[in-house]
């Protein structure tokens, strides 16, 4: 029962990643692609947490912690580059 509900949740997360990938390929400008990159990172954090639950190991959550800190840095670097101020 619980695993079925979590499987459906994982399918919804995969659909969100696919829609962001569509915007990444189609997007007319670099800023659209940066937003798609940000959304894909945030969706990956929940996918990692879901993998950690199915594997039953708490050590996998460290990777989600590093994701939450470092994707922010790369997005800020891209934004400063566009704004001509890196």
């Amino acid at each position, binding site marked *: *029962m*619980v695993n079925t*509900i*979590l499987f*459906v*949740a*994982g399918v*919804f*997360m995969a*659909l*969100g*990643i*696919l*829609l*962001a990938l*569509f*915007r990444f390929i189609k997007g007319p*400008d670099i*800023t*659209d692609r*940066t*937003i*798609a990159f*940000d*959304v894909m990172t*945030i*969706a990956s*954090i*929940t996918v990692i*947490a*879901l993998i*950690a*639950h199915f594997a039953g190991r*708490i050590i996998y*959550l460290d990777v*989600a*912690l590093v994701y*939450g*800190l470092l*994707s*922010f840095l790369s*997005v*800020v670097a*891209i*934004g*400063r580059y*566009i*704004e001509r101020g890196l």
Partner: protein
Amino acid sequence: MEIREIIGASVTLVGSIFIFLGGLGIVRMPDLFNRIQAGTKASTLGTILSLIGLGIINPAWIWKLLVIVFFVLITNPVSSNVISRAAHFRGTKMTDKTVADLLVESENKTREE
């Protein structure tokens, strides 16, 4: 025990539906600023709900998950602010239905003074 796990799984399902809506908004919205609005806000709420739902299922993990929620809640608005500010100074076109641009108005006011 079973009731608590089903409640946690339902919260995770609601969060994943918010992430899906964030992806749908990033495809369907007409211009860049609406895409930033739909994408980052909806996916932040979806991430918080999903992680807290997994914390309800496994009560021993709740502190680590709360630390991840804290980092996401701090870093994600900063990144969306940086991108929207860069796009604004780059001269990205808005859609015709947008009626207010407060950043341009405040810049004109400081330039007059």
